[in-house]
């Protein structure tokens, strides 16, 4: 009798839509994984901390490079050529020469600094104003400031330098580029080293998360066996572990952002003082939104990959006997 009622009740039951079921199943897996992590706060925190530090290392190195680039960006003028013309060259001749040089493909701009303007500036800035008034004539030549095009390599800079020096009006050319170029090359090299290091650290995160998930699988061996016994598919058994990996990655990425942010905060004041000594208002650059999202995204991705590998390797072996 009771069994009959049971059946009637079942046939009357309304079915939920497959999408609702799918969503609620994922939601419960997702929250369940979070719950398991929260139930072992200390162990979970250590795992997340290791991931965070591993993510924060390349992130902070990237910030160092980014700031160095930003500071050296103001040094573009150091790449300029100063072309001192011979004393006999008139202002009209200098202007014509400036027009000619400016038409070259490898030159971006040419600025003429006439001799009298240069003298006026020198008077104003050097503090020798009164003494200079006694000079019978202006000892300074006209000067052309030549800024090369942005796509210049070391070789083309040398060539341009030679050609400018060989002009009949040129007295001499002054370039002060070498150390800037060396600096930029060093930054490039560091950037590459960081990329390689990041790959290694990414692999380390995969291993860390994979190992955590492996332990998790071992601890829940009985549960996995029972659920498989009553008809759970591999996907069903896999899903909670993938969500655990996702949470570890998300937690690690977020904590990495906090660590880097705190580091920038700690360095901001000293960096400001240092910039002040150089009469600069430079402020340390922090991670922008895109970079922050990239760090969190990397954490999540590595978390998923790590747990996927662990699950693929260890879950198949747990079969009911």
């Amino acid at each position, binding site marked *: 009798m*009771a*069994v*009959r*009622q*049971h*059946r009637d*009740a*079942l046939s009357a*039951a*309304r*079915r*939920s839509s*497959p999408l*609702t*079921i*799918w969503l*609620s*199943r994922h939601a419960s897996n997702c929250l369940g994984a979070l719950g398991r992590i929260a139930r072992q706060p200390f162990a979970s925190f250590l795992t997340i901390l290791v991931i965070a530090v591993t993510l924060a290392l390349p992130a902070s190195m990237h910030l160092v490079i980014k700031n160095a680039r930003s500071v050296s960006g103001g040094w573009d003028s150091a790449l300029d050529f100063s072309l001192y013309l011979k004393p006999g060259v008139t202002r009209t001749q200098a202007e014509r020469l400036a027009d000619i040089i400016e038409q070259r493909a490898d030159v971006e701009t040419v600025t003429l600094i006439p001799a009298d303007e240069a003298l006026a500036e020198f008077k104003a800035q050097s503090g020798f104003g009164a003494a200079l008034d006694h000079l019978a004539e202006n000892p300074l030549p006209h000067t052309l400031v030549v800024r090369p095009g942005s796509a210049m390599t070391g070789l083309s800079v040398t060539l341009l330098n030679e050609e400018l020096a060989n002009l009949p009006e040129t007295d001499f050319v002054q370039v002060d580029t070498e150390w800037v170029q060396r600096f930029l090359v060093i930054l490039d090299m560091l950037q590459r080293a960081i990329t390689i290091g990041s790959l290694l650290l990414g692999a380390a995160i995969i291993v860390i998360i994979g190992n955590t998930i492996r332990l998790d699988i071992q601890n829940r061996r*009985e*549960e996995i*066996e*029972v*659920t*498989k*016994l*009553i*008809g*759970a*598919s*591999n996907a*069903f058994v896999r899903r909670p572990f993938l969500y655990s990996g996702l949470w570890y990655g998300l937690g690690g990425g977020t904590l990495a952002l906090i660590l880097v942010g705190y580091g920038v905060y700690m360095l901001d004041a000293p960096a400001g003082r240092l910039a002040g000594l150089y009469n600069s208002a430079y402020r340390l650059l922090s991670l922008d939104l895109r970079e922050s999202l990239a760090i969190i995204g990397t954490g999540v991705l590595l978390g998923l990959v790590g747990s996927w590998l662990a699950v693929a390797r260890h879950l198949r072996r747990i*079969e*009911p*006997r």
Partner: protein
Amino acid sequence: MIQVENVVKRFPGGQEALRGLSLIVDKGEMVFVTGHSGAGKSTLLKLIALIDRPTSGQVLVDGQNTRRIPRRRIPAYRRQIGMVFQDHKLLNDRPVFDNVALPLVIAGVGRREAARKVRAALDQVDLLRKEKQPPETLSSGEQQRVGIARAIVSRPKLLIADEPTGNLDPDLSLEVMRIFRRFNEVGVTVLIASHDIALIDQLGCRRIRLENGVVQQDDEDEEDFVADYAENLRPDGRPDPWP
């Protein structure tokens, strides 16, 4: 429902658990498989549940040849069968309700429908009041009833049980068997492996005795038993066949 044809199961060590076993269980039957431990009872149930595969011969369940079911389809196949185990195989980290709901969660049944089915199943085994308790706090007999509720919650056509009363005292054993009988009465085919001859004698169901991996005796061959059995199965509200 179950058709076992000339099945041999040889283990890697070389010993043979089944040596050419054949038997047929019809839809709606309730059958006991008996025999000493090592006679092949558990192996037979494992082959039916596709926990293991035969070395040769074939097992057909509800028209499906288990040999043709690939590994990835095993979960879907198992979901059609209710299984009860000697050690219950309940999960102690969650309450009775969640344990019984597990097959429905796996099958992706909606929450409200699942709750209704779980309560109905718990009502069947008379444990509705204990749905919030963890299985550990229940007596052994109650735990086994939870195991049965979990096995029948998705209303399988076939119920198999491996020594379901192995850990229970005689009174509780009889009670558990009564529950199996109730499900059998509404059309579920039931196959139970047990060595508790005294208990089985009280029930009067068909009995298949295994010895050394072959059928040694099958009650179906005895006519008077068949008559008896048919009597017991009459769905007309006759009193329980048990005292």
